[in-house]
């Protein structure tokens, strides 16, 4: 198997501060059309600084070259296959970028009068309606900035709901397959986490929940499909158990892309779910955000949604601040609007039928990889999967090769590695999520490479241990980064 990686000129580039030459000017501000005000006289010396020590001075072109070179050391979704499990690295359509940059969306001040913002409010109102339709839940807030922020928002609403009933609840049930954000958000919302061990069984059972659900427990936080890529088949019955004790069902919607158009969460007993627009709805990940984490809720939680809400009356849109039971605000203003524009644009381009097709194609692609790799790599759960498949390094361990080595070797073949060592319940997990936007040709080639690597593990494990060799840098010393921290440049 020949590697995709070929030669290219990758240039070294110092830190921006090391390129600075004091006095050099990049892009100066506009010429002034008003009399100059002397800061010393206007503000007084005690408020002023002398200089900004170390701040870089570069020409415009050098700055552009700097960042262009840096970009060339990055591997993006547009660079190649990026099967990062649970992260849903589907194509980020270019039209969405163009739409979000239209001046009529980009140049709006959040406090400008509602009369001047009718298009923005209409877009948000429609997006709420689409997300409500997709999840089968009544009401939506677009305010949270990311998935974890949405989780916190949903959990705070649950806490407020029980408090309003006069019986605050202190605990929340979370299975061991959950993303780390679930317990972290629960803690922040004031809940004590009751972990449930699925013990490698894959799906949560009614009995597991029954054993821990009581009337001090606010409910269950469940990712569905779960992080093993399996649909929680018992969710309806589990929801009944939770509801019978007066609890609420929280669904982590990070994996909504596996069920969109096939299942409505509201129909199967879910009371609250956060969505990740940067996963299911194709908005870019930006090298670590910004994302957007809307929360959809059923009737019971609607009064607690963050403020403001978007209201439509007589064809006019407005912001409604009169919400006595609201949990308050999750952030300033109304959420990550320009991300909402992208997600809205995606939904309108796909249409209802297209969204369902995307789900089906994601499931097809994941199952194809699962089926074709399962003899080569140990499959954690041998049953039909949803949008991702979880393997492990069990078959390769005897060669002295680990998941990390396999991941790093994939880089030399021109692929971003899958998610590794997560979910925690699978030892040495290799979590592959191809998404629906990849062709079968890409998958075939990736599968061939994975098989080649499995062969290499047997015949030449050293080549895996040494990988990657074709990247600008080799494996990095992460221990040193933590033990001898250098977190900023200094002169």
């Amino acid at each position: 198997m020949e590697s995709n990686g070929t030669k290219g000129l990758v240039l070294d580039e110092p830190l921006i501060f090391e390129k600075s030459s004091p006095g050099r000017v990049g892009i100066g501000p506009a010429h002034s059309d008003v009399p100059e005000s002397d800061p010393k006289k206007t503000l007084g010396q005690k408020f002023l600084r002398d200089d900004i020590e170390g701040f870089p001075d570069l020409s415009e072109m050098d700055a552009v070259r700097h960042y262009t070179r840096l970009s060339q050391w990055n591997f993006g979704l547009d660079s190649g296959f990026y099967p990062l499990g649970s992260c849903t690295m589907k194509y980020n359509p270019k039209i969405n970028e163009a739409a979000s940059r239209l001046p009529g969306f980009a140049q709006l001040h959040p406090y400008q009068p509602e009369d001047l913002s009718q298009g923005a409010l209409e877009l948000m109102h429609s997006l709420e309606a689409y997300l409500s339709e997709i999840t089968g839940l009544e009401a939506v807030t677009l305010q949270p900035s990311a998935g974890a922020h949405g989780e916190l928002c949903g959990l705070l609403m649950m806490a407020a709901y029980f408090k309003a009933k006069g019986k605050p609840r202190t605990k929340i049930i979370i299975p061991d397959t959950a993303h780390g954000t679930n317990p972290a958000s629960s803690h922040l919302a004031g809940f004590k986490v009751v972990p449930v061990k699925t013990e490698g069984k894959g799906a949560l059972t009614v009995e597991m929940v029954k054993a821990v659900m009581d009337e001090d427990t606010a409910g269950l936080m469940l990712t569905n499909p779960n992080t093993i890529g399996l649909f929680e088949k018992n969710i309806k019955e589990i929801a009944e158990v939770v509801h019978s004790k007066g609890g609420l069902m929280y669904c982590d919607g990070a994996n909504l892309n596996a069920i969109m158009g096939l299942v409505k969460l509201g129909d199967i007993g879910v009371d609250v779910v956060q969505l990740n627009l940067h996963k299911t709805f194709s908005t870019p990940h930006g090298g670590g955000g910004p994302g957007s984490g809307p929360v959809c809720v059923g009737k019971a939680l609607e009064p607690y949604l963050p403020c403001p809400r978007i209201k439509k009356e007589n064809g006019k849109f407005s912001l409604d601040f009169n919400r006595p039971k609201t949990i308050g605000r999750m952030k300033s203003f109304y959420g990550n609007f320009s991300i909402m524009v992208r997600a809205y644009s995606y939904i309108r381009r796909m249409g209802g039928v297209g969204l369902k097709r995307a789900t089906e194609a994601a499931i097809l692609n994941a199952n194809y990889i699962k089926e074709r790799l399962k003899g080569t790599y140990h499959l954690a759960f041998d049953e039909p999967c949803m949008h991702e498949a979880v393997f492990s390094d069990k078959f390769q361990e005897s060669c002295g090769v680990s998941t990390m080595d396999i991941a790093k070797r994939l880089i030399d073949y021109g692929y971003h590695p899958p998610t590794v060592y997560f979910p925690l319940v699978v030892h040495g997990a290799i979590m592959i999520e191809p998404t629906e936007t990849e062709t079968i040709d890409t998958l075939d080639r990736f599968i061939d490479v994975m098989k080649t690597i499995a062969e290499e593990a047997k015949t030449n494990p050293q080549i895996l241990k040494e990988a990657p060799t074709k990247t600008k840098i080799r494996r990095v010393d992460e221990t040193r980064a933590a033990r001898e921290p250098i977190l900023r440049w200094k002169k």
Partner: protein
Amino acid sequence: MPYIPHTAKDIEKILKAVGAGSVEELISQLPAASRLKGPLAIPDGLSEQELLGHMKALSSKNSTVEEYSSFLGAGAYNHYIPSVVDAIISRSEFYTSYTPYQPELSQGTLQAIFEYQTLVCQLTGMDVANASLYDGATAVAEACLMAKRITNREGIVLANALHPEYRETVATYLTGTGDHLSTIDYSATTGATSLDAIESAISDKTACVVIQHPNFFGSLEDIEAIAGVVHKKKALLVVAVTEAVSFGLLKSLGDCGCDIAVGENQSFGNSLSYGGPYLGFMATKTEFIRQMPGRLIGQTVDKEGRRAFCLTFATREQHIRREKATSNICTNHGLCALAASVHMVSLGSGGLRKLAALNLSKAEYLKKKLKESGVEAAFTSPTFNEFTVKVKGSPDGVLKKLLEKKIIGGLNLEKYYPELGNHLLICATEMNSKEEMDALAAALK
């Protein structure tokens, strides 16, 4: 179907490989009782051309701050964004990549964020900064939680002159873990927070005091003196900055004795976009690193000894520590931080000072013109590019009249501060021409 490349033949091949007769058969793993029966009630898909037409039509229902003269600030500032910013953040190697978990494939993002951390340290005068938080409001909330962990104290004291939406966000964040919140009023004369008021608001249970600088009314706060008062009671001083361009002129927060500097970096390189995404920042002293929330990039070496960067101190974070993490934050605002870096770098130290000075000059000019029209500044403290005025008549009526002249005249403060019934918060940046400001002053006569 857009973005789905499967041909009928491809689907056939996949189905054969997985041993299913149809797509429906493969999906039959979902319990029948859970399945959605009909189609989603979402309009049919549009072609790209139709979609762009639709989006243009929708966006044209809005009026922009370009079409109107806008004097709005209040936590979201209209600044000129140099073309290089969009050129760089539009490079798909940056914007289509994920959080840099695989350092060998992510050195671009990692070095850029390491540089951003340094730029934030330089602007704030602090030792260490994180990769980013969602926005200024959540950054303040995270700072309060961090102060509680550091001091093992519960009390959070917020200046009333802190952005009202930031105060609301802090209150929301603290409901889960106990909200021992109190506020300190501002001086009706200076518009700043008085030292006496601060002193009497702090007890030995106070974890931190949060002061905005310049504050919500635009007034500068005496951070150095405030730090003295706060530290006397062994509490921490959190300073929030919503207008980051002020860093170009104002004394660094580190030099003033600030413990945690937080705020909003939207002013650098991020468009107004109706309120988001913006860019929360946080910087602090070295001794508090392990209590800091958010991603941190560190410098290290690769196996051949070359300089390299990676995510570090992950043991603070949710994916390792779960419920014991310093925060639940995962996805943050990386691309916004890149945009801010590119803007800062293209300005350089000289450009930033000039930009800040220009903002001051514009605001001072407007203040003078308004005074000539009989509209006086409400407070005596010095201000940067934003200030509060008292208008004649109801502010809503005044603002409505201005709209007829295509002027968005500022923010009516009454909604947030009932005692400031006739007050407007007005901001002037490099985007406001002399002509516009003259027109505003004339209209308010």
